[in-house]
């Protein structure tokens, strides 16, 4: 398996809304903490170290 960088989220606008809503009313540090937890939860779901490495690479390569 390799990292999926093609569109894969159904209803992208809806997801984006939910992502922002989760941060609604949070301070900068609370938001940072939420993001960190989210990264960890998603990373565990992926699990595959190679895919995670590719994801880190993709995220770094803005």
């Amino acid at each position, binding site marked *: 398996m390799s990292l999926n960088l093609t569109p894969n989220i159904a209803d992208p606008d809806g997801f984006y809304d939910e992502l922002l809503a989760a941060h609604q009313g949070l301070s900068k540090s609370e938001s*940072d*903490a939420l993001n*960190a*937890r989210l*990264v*960890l939860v998603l990373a*565990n779901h992926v699990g595959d170290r190679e895919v995670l490495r590719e994801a880190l690479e993709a995220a770094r390569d803005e």
Partner: protein
Amino acid sequence: MVDVRYDIAFQLYPYEKVPAQDQPAQRHPVVVVGGGPIGMAAALDLGRKGTPVLVLDDHAGVGQGSRAICFSKRTLEIAERLGTGQAMADKGVVWNVGKVFHGPDKVFEFNLLPEAGHRFPAFINLQQPYFEKFIVDEIRVAQSQGAPIEIRGQNAVTGVERHTDHVVLTVDTPDGPYRVEADWLIACDGARSPIRDMMGLTFDGRVFEDNFLIADVKMTAEFPTERWFWFEPPFKGAGQSALLHKQPDDIWRIDFQLGWDIDRKAELDPVKIRARVDAMLETQTGQAPEYELEWTSIYTFQCRRMERFRHGRVLFAGDAAHQVSPFGARGANSGIQDTDNLAWKLDLVIRGLAPESLLDTYSAERVHGADENILNSSRATDFLTPKSEISKVFRNAVLGLARKHAFARPLVNSGRLSVPCVYDDMPLNGPDAQDGPERTRVGAPCADAPLDQGFLLDRLPGRFTVLAINTPAPEVTEVDGIPVGKLELSTARHDPTGAVAERYLGGQDSAVYLIRPDQHVAARWQSCDADTLRSALGTAIGKGAEA
């Protein structure tokens, strides 16, 4: 003059003048400098093999202070091979449960759930002075049985002269200096190794800017025998992390991480220490119980190692060769693995049975071990002391998630407890042709297992041994003068719990293991003939390249 750097817990080898001090320098096959646990274990191991060893220590006994308190199963197994593991285990405190707190809340608890079928527990807690004393006691037993070991207390090495085939030491004593010659020198003189400095060798690595306060307190109040660790402890003045851990004799080790910019002298004021300890204990017991301060100390640490552990006729072991943070109990435990690795090799080289290059594999294998320990210990330290704002955000995110979700608990790192090093892909390794369990692969230390009588490791007593399971061992009793022991087991008769089959056969019907004197696996096959075995033994003593 011999400086006194620390107080003595057990005076075991007071200074006695020896005739050699008034004579021309005498040559010794092996001189060990430093009578800490590593130096003494090296002396005991070599002496038990019949190789004469002289130990020079600049004090008269074992220093005070609990220092290393957590000894691993592998260390006890090595100590038992040397005759003293059971004494240590009997005195030590066995613990299995650990609790991790973040602020006032418990994040989770774990149980080491030690695997059954081993003589020794996964870990014991034992103050280092006891550990050292048990080894010296065993040296006294070995001496009475004829082992050629000599200990000279208050003999401080002040000069090292290196020659191609020996080393000359200048040794200071209360009666003035004298000289000692050594064919081989083992430097076990600690993290600040004077020998290393005198030889101008580097010791590079990473400095961690932090101070840790240790308070050993004696209290008889009932506390569970568990390891409690706090991230961002809720009690006043505790610092960034805190640890509570039990030792024998009703002693509790309490550690506080104080940060970098502190006034060491002020922090060591007993009044200030008691205020911290009171605050910690009160969170657990309401009111702090009666206790006495046994020993206090502030330490900083580095993670570093020498580039190589052999420099001609000088071999470095223990903290002199490598230094790690205390998280994970990888200091003393890895030092003992150094001597376990070194003693048999040096013994064979001194007897002319193996090439000198065998000692370079000591460096290669133990550098590999040191790197593993430094990696683990640095990672734990980075988790404990986040070095940036975002690393702290992630650290606290892990702790937050770990309360609810099992997935995050393996990410919590308050020290990965020492496991024995596996010498993967090392030059002494022979064929791994058994398709057997990974844990007993070539390079790994043998896993213990109960036999019909006693334990398996009791039968692997410090020499090369062929372990043949459900198949005959090849008829080999020695190879080029090196004795080879034989242990033939049948799982039907000698394996009451099935542990031998599980740990050594995997799914196969039979196995032949060639096991090194340090109980690491040198090679394994489903069956093997005498020539194959001889060839693997040649490889295991560094003759592989010549064959």
